[in-house]
């Protein structure tokens, strides 16, 4: 009887040894039984990393404002002053949080784990700013300074926003379709011998073909380029989801079925209540891979034929040599893709909370 019930398990807080030692004296008697290293410790004093980060942001602001941009033949970069002011404001806010220490409350607690990133970010931005706007060391206009992204967001937010909405809609339709079909197919061929015989070879033969290779064909057959793109995104999602669901269902321990069968389970019960939940960890791996594949097909399809979406925007920006717009679109794409993957992992962690030791995203 070694396992402790979860309710009684002690949740160890982030350990801060020096602070713990300082707080120990003032603890109420009831908590004095807990070893010092397990107590919930409120951060005290000035947050030193925060002070460093604040000075980093203030430095970035100073560099942006005080160092004049290098003239490069055409008009000056817009929004230089705004970038500088934004950095100074960020620096001042951070300084306030850092100096307030424990009194900063929730904001302080949220920021603390990101402390080192908060130092690194202004340094990287300063380097970028110096190499582009200030020194012109990287050839303009291919390398745009950070303030040009603000410029794009200001000038072109409507088009960029619309493109994002288009991409998201296309992705959602394709991914949902592909994931559902893949999951269904996977369970089907994992469970039914006949389906395994007929469908598995087809899947093996056609599945590995890159979905983007079917692009010309899809655009030719489909009623609209949107439908073609949905189909291709679905196809890209379908294959990994189907294969991993199938392997998940096929590798369910036979004894799980034996147990359910002796308890009077029907075939449907075995599929729904045994095979599917047991295969879920694998299904999520398939969904993860499918999502990755769908991003790539989505952008390709948008570049090749669909007249909307972030892929189209990239192509369009490049056509006008609007490189800053391109970077902005790439940034949006990065936020979008990593956000979706994070969402998928959050869903997985919720669904598979019974598992121990899953990989954290």
């Amino acid at each position, binding site marked *: *009887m*070694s*396992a*402790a*019930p*979860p*309710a009684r398990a002690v949740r160890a807080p982030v350990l801060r040894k020096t602070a713990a030692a300082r707080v120990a004296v003032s603890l109420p008697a009831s908590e004095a039984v807990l070893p010092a290293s397990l107590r919930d410790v409120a951060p005290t004093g000035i947050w030193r990393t925060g002070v460093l980060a604040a000075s980093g942001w203030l430095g970035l602001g100073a560099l942006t404002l005080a160092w004049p941009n290098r003239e490069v033949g055409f008009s000056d970069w817009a929004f230089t002053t705004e970038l500088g002011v934004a950095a100074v404001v960020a620096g001042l806010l951070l300084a306030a949080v850092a100096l307030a220490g424990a009194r900063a409350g929730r904001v302080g607690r949220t920021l603390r784990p990101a402390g080192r990133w908060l130092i690194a970010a202004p340094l990287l931005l300063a380097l970028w700013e110096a190499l582009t706007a200030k020194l012109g060391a990287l050839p303009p206009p291919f390398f745009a300074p950070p303030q040009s992204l603000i410029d794009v967001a200001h000038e072109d937010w409507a088009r960029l926003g619309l493109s994002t909405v288009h991409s998201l809609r296309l992705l959602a339709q394709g991914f949902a379709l592909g994931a559902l079909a893949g999951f269904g197919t996977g369970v089907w061929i994992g469970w039914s011998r006949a389906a395994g015989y007929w469908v598995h070879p087809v899947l093996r033969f056609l599945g590995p073909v890159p979905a983007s290779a079917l692009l010309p064909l899809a655009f030719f057959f489909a009623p609209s380029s949107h439908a073609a793109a949905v189909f291709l995104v679905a196809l890209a999602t379908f294959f990994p989801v189907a294969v991993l669901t199938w392997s998940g269902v096929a590798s369910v*321990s036979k*004894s*799980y079925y*034996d*147990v*359910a*069968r*002796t*308890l*009077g*389970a*029907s075939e449907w*019960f075995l599929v729904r*209540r*045994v095979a599917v*939940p*047991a295969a*879920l960890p694998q299904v999520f791996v398939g969904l993860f891979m499918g999502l990755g594949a769908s991003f790539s097909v989505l952008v390709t399809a948008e570049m090749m034929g669909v007249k909307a979406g972030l892929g189209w925007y990239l192509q369009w920006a490049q056509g006008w040599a609007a490189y800053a717009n391109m970077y902005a679109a790439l940034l949006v794409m990065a936020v979008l893709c990593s956000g979706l993957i994070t969402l998928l992992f959050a869903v997985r962690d919720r669904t*598979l909370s*019974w*598992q*121990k030791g899953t990989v954290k995203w």
Partner: protein
Amino acid sequence: MVSVAEAGRSGAPDTVGPATGARIDIQGVSHWFRQPRGGALQVLDGIDLQVRPGEFVALLGPSGCGKSTLLRLVAGLEPATTGRLLQDGVPITQPDPSRIVVFQDPTLYPWRNVRDNVALGLQARGLLGAQRSRVDEALVLVGLTDFADSFPHQLSGGMAQRVALARALVNDPRLLVLDEPLGKLDSLTRIAMQSELLALWQRAGFSALLVTHDVEEALFLADRVVILSDRPARITAELVVDLPYPRHRGHPRLVELRHAALRHLGLDATW
């Protein structure tokens, strides 16, 4: 741990439902396994055995002799190659919730908490809505009420096996098929669990068919110990344990029977 001291076998089964033990007849059962490279491997050879209603029968034999196969046939998980298996005179053709198997591994579903694992049988038969309270009763029976919301990976081996036992008992089995259910537990947990098992059997009144390779366990638990030979398994001897429950492990009669069992197994050289 639940209390185990219950003097003698009570005549009528009390709280745990109306189950009465099933009669099992195994008549001339032989069984072969098809080999992957052709041919067949005989594992059972002409087994004749009867389990009377409410009786506790232990099958004792060397490891790999085919004991577990016999249990799978009794459970209805596989059909016998030749011979007949009957429950109360009716041929056993498929698994049935009146005959529940407890396997060597608890085989709890890791994605279900303890309560939902115990509820499995009721849910499978669509009875969960009407009989949900029985799940909690079964958990009380094995002393795991506090762990109803835990997941299997949070349990120790002994606790997991008790959950498996509760999962079986919630269905009011008429025959409990025990496939070395205590085989993987440490020896202290094992001794405690043997007593618990006995107490549950005495309360519920089911018939029990236990496979084990632990001589002491067989003699401590069973009315009758059937000794099987090496593969293909044949019945070589039958020992009637003529001692009342609860038994005492040091009883001279048990020691005597233990010697006899080892002799039948060809292992008495060290006696």
